Structures are given as C-alpha cells and as structure tokens.
C-alpha cells in the first residue's frame, strides 16, 4: 500500500529508520521541554541547507500514509521552493498533498503562519535558519547554552530597551523573540512579527527544525507564547495599512508588489489559500 508511488530504492520518507528514530526521540524531548533547542544528528539531505532541511527531516520523521501534506513558502503554496519540497515528499512518500489549510494534517512552512486558525490534530512544521534567538547578541553557542540554562535573557531585554530608547519602538520586524511557557526564549523562525500572536495557545502542535544548525524545538498545543515587550511599550505587530487587491482582506498579511515604472504599489495576501477562499473584489483594482 504505502509503497505504491514511492521513489524506487528509498525508504518511505527518504530517511532510514535509524535516523527517524533519532529525530523522533529528539521531538519527544522537545515537546517535553517547550522552547528548548534539542541538538540532533541532522543528516545531509538531497536539498541544500537553507532550503528547509530541518523542516524536511522533521516532516519525514512524522509523516505517515494517512497524512495530507501542505507546504508553503512566504505563505504561498506555489512558490518554487514550496513546489519543490511538496514534490520531494510526493516522490518519497506518495502521500496526498493539498493547498487547503483546513484539509492538511501536516503543514510545513517557511516564514509564515497560515491566516486560518489551525485546529487540534494538525501539526505545523517550521523551517528554521537560525534557531538561537540570541545569536546576534552572542554568537558563541556554548555561551548561549549557558544563558538558556540560567534563563539569563538580560541581553535581549537590554537590546529591546535600547531600541525603544533610540527609536521609540522595537526595531525587530520579523523573527521577533518569544518566551515560551514563561521559561525559554525562542526564535519563532523568520515569520513577520504580525504572525507572533498566532503562536500563543495554538490548538495545533508546532515543531521547529533547523537542519544546518542541528536543532529541533517545539511548542505543545495551548502553550503560552509571549512576544517580549515592556509594560509601557507593549508588543505591536504591524502590517501594511492596505487591502488585498484580489480579495479585499484587511486582516491578512500582505505582499507588496511594484506594478509599474513609476513605483505604483499593489498589495496582495501572502497566504494564497486564504486569499483564494474569499470572494474576489469587484474589479475595483484591476
């Protein structure tokens, strides 16, 4: 059954069973210690580092024949890398794929959280380039490990404070650091800060894979995920103050398009499935 449409010569999901077991053990510990980065023996994949090897290894270790997979990059199902990863899993697992957020059991994503609210039973797998939220402030991994052990996140608070003192607001607009379950500082991956609130008490399980950096971490369902801020300067996510020219949405995250030589701009939903699920606006912006 499961072998029906699988690339000859490769195991279901590409990874061998030993590797899957190693990743599965890491995933369970990641769930047990929310937000903590579990080191794992990341393998060299047939896609390059930076293209989502961490997310791919996580997906390959959890996926089964009854799953329905959705892959997005920048919110869209039809970006080249999303197409390529979806095709990879189709070749090595033969599982059903979908572009509909609601129909998917596993959603692998790069840089976005879908607009539609996720539910119990779904798993969101993030591709993560730099799992360490402190790396710009302290590049030595041995040092950041110690800071996590002590929950010593003073550096990050000082950075935020300096931003606010100088610019009146935090200058981080994506990959905005969060505190998970009031304990671990975590990189939400380079999603726009606009998406951060969706991580908080999400009914779906969130798994994060960083292949090149060889780390896996997780946020269990319904877990508190708080974007760092100060009482007098609460976290304020932003989006372009515009409507999608296709569906008219004013609540979704937008891509900005430059449509002529004079720099005229249009905005469209970054989440293509969300956009397609809404009635189009009447030709207004055509």
């Amino acid at each position, binding site marked *: 059954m499961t072998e029906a449409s699988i690339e000859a010569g*490769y195991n279901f999901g*590409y990874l*061998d069973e030993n590797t899957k077991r190693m990743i599965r053990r890491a995933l369970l510990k990641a769930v047990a210690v929310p937000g903590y980065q579990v*080191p*794992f*023996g*990341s*393998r*060299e*994949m*047939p896609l*390059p*580092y*930076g*293209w989502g*090897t961490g997310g791919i290894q996580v997906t390959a270790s959890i996926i089964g024949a009854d799953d329905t997979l959705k892959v997005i*990059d*920048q*919110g869209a199902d*039809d*970006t*080249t*890398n999303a*197409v*390529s990863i979806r*095709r990879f899993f189709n070749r090595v697992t033969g599982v059903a794929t979908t572009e509909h957020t609601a129909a998917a059991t596993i959603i692998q994503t*790069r*840089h*976005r959280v879908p607009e539609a609210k996720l539910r119990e039973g779904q798993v969101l797998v993030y591709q993560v*380039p730099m799992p360490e939220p402190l790396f710009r402030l302290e*590049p*030595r*991994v*041995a040092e950041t490990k110690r800071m996590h052990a002590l929950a010593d996140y003073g550096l990050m608070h000082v950075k935020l404070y300096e931003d606010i003192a100088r*610019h*009146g*607001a935090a*200058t981080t*607009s*994506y990959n905005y650091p969060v505190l998970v379950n009031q304990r671990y500082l975590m990189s939400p991956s*380079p*999603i*726009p*800060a*606009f998406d951060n609130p969706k991580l908080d008490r999400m009914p779906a399980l969130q798994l994060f894979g960083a292949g*090149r950096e*060889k*780390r896996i971490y997780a946020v269990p369902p319904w877990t508190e995920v708080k974007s760092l801020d100060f009482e007098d300067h609460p976290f304020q996510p*932003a*989006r*372009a103050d515009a409507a999608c020219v*296709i569906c008219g949405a004013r609540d979704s*995250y937008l*891509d*900005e*398009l430059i*449509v002529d030589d004079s720099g005229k701009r*249009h905005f*469209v939903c*970054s989440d293509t499935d969300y956009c397609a699920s809404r009635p189009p606006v009447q030709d207004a912006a055509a």
Partner: protein
Amino acid sequence: MYVAVKGGERAIGNAHAWLDEARRGDPALAELDVAQVEQQLGLAVDRVMAEGSCYDRGLAALAVKQARGDLIEAAFLLRAYRTTLARFGASEPVETGAMRIQRRISATYKDLPGGQVLGPTFDYTHRLLDFALAAEREAVAPAPEGVADPAPMPRVTELLAREGLMRRESRSDAEPPDLTRDPLNFPVPRAAWLQALARGDEGFLLGLGYSTQRGYGNSHPFAGEIRMGEVTVEFTPPELGFAIELGEIVLTECQMVNQFAGSKSEPPQFTRGYGLVFGHGERKAMAMALVDRGLRAEELGEPVDAPAQSQEFVLYHCDNVEATGFVEHLKLPHYVDFQSELEKLRSLRQEAGQ
C-alpha cells in the same frame, strides 16, 4: 502580474531541462566520459571525495560531471548520497607509517631514513601554459621508473619524539566521535575537530592556515613531513574477531612541527599540527595541520585570540556544504520578511519626522 512573481512546477521543469542542455554543451563535441574525469581530472575527484567525505573515485567523478565542474556542488551530491548508505561498522585505524609511498618530503631534514621522494608534484614546474596540451597529441611518454627503496620510512615526528623533543600525544582507544551522527557540543575533543577539518573546505582552511602564519595565532610551523600514497583499510567483523583487508585508499598526511615555549608542567619542546585528507590533497593537508595546531592553543595554555584558535569559529564555518547552503539560500524569496522591514522602516521614519 500576481502570477509573475510566483514560480511553479513548469518553471522548475524547464530550468532543469535547460541545466541538462548547458551541462552537455555543444553536442557536436564528444561527451565527457566519467572514466575520463576520474583519470584526467584526478585532483578534482580527490577534492570532491575529501569534502564529500566518501571515498569512491567513480562516484566522485560522476558528481564532478553532473555538477558541471562545480566542486562544492559535486561534494554536496556525494554527501547527499552518503547519507543513504547503510553503516556496517568502523574500520581499524589506518597505519600511515606503513603507507606505500608515492610522495614523501621533509622540509626539516636534508636527508633522512627512506629519503625524499618528490612524486607527481607541480612544485618545480614552471607555470607556463603548455599549448601542446591544447592540441591533440601522441600518448605521453611513460615516466622513468626506478626500483622502490625497501627501507622503512619512519615518520619525522617519531624521530624527534625518540629524542624527547616532540611532545607526546596521549593515546586513546576510545571510539572517536562522529559529527555526522552527533552534533558538535563545544568544547569538542581533538578527534572531532580533525574530522570536521578533514571534511572542511580547502579554501577556507587555506585562508585560516595562512592567517596563522601572518600573526593571527602565534605559530612557527615547519613542514616536518608530507607523505602521500596508498594505505590498507582493514575491518574487524565482530563475528570473526580478526581484521580482514578491505582494500587500499590514497591519503595525504602532513605533520607540521611547531615551537612550544613550554609551561609550568612541561619543558620547551616541539608540538605537532596534523592534517590528513582523502586522495592527493597536499594544500588541504598542510592547511589543516596549521589550523589543527591553532585549535590546540587552549590545550597548550597559549592565549586564544585569533580566528584559527577559536573552536566555534573554525568548526561552525569550515563546512562548505553548510556554508554554501546558508549563503545561497539568500536567493530564495524573503519578501515576507522584507515587507515587514519595509513597514517598520517607513513607520520609524515617519515617527522620526514628526
């Protein structure tokens, strides 16, 4: 216009077809044979085996052909293939002292037991383009052959060690770590960094090794010995309990001899930096030996202030498959993040203007 920014299955398919066509080049010319690559671009094959960390000349030659001569891409192809191979066990340590020598030189002794063997080297060629190679020509005349000297070739560092001038390495029979299975956990033992360096990028190690000669890390290296040739690989199956010979591989080994001022517990003596790579890779082996010595600074109680002395700096950045992935991933779409930066910048400028 919306569709124009999105790629798709068809675009990818077309790009791959174009890539195939570009790889083949002018179809009026004979197609390059993998065996020709293996035989005539042997040093490219060696480098791909070393950085792909898989010793198979045929597969490495195929990777060079498939990658259109891009050696980092070829190493990546070989690594991705390597991932899928089952592991049967670990070989016995190879004995480079018993190497069947093709090349062996020492810069520290004019003559020594076993002598100097130049071997197939560019060292004393005049770098003049040989236009005769551009023309078809008769077969190359065979190089003159001598009789191999049966005398053993002891390692130079052994000769120094016998005199007590070379710091003894502590012997360990512990299973060495394998960074392809377990991620690096700093500080790492020397065996782990030697593995990382052996797989590391030749260009990166060359630059770092060079920096140690120019004052970034205080080293005073001499090329104690460089040797290249075949060594026997043996494996002990647990059910047999004795070693059986699997075959021979070509290795290049470099032992650098460095000064050491001594410490409270040790007298002044020489120390070594060690380099070992698959195939004929002399530049890489030498650079590796310089960087290895740099990384030993902490162990030897020397100040750690240069890039080549920092474990995290060297080991996190020497792998070219990792490095090329992360550098090149910048060409993947980032418009979601860029959009958030645009909005942030606009709002910060607006506030500043008020």
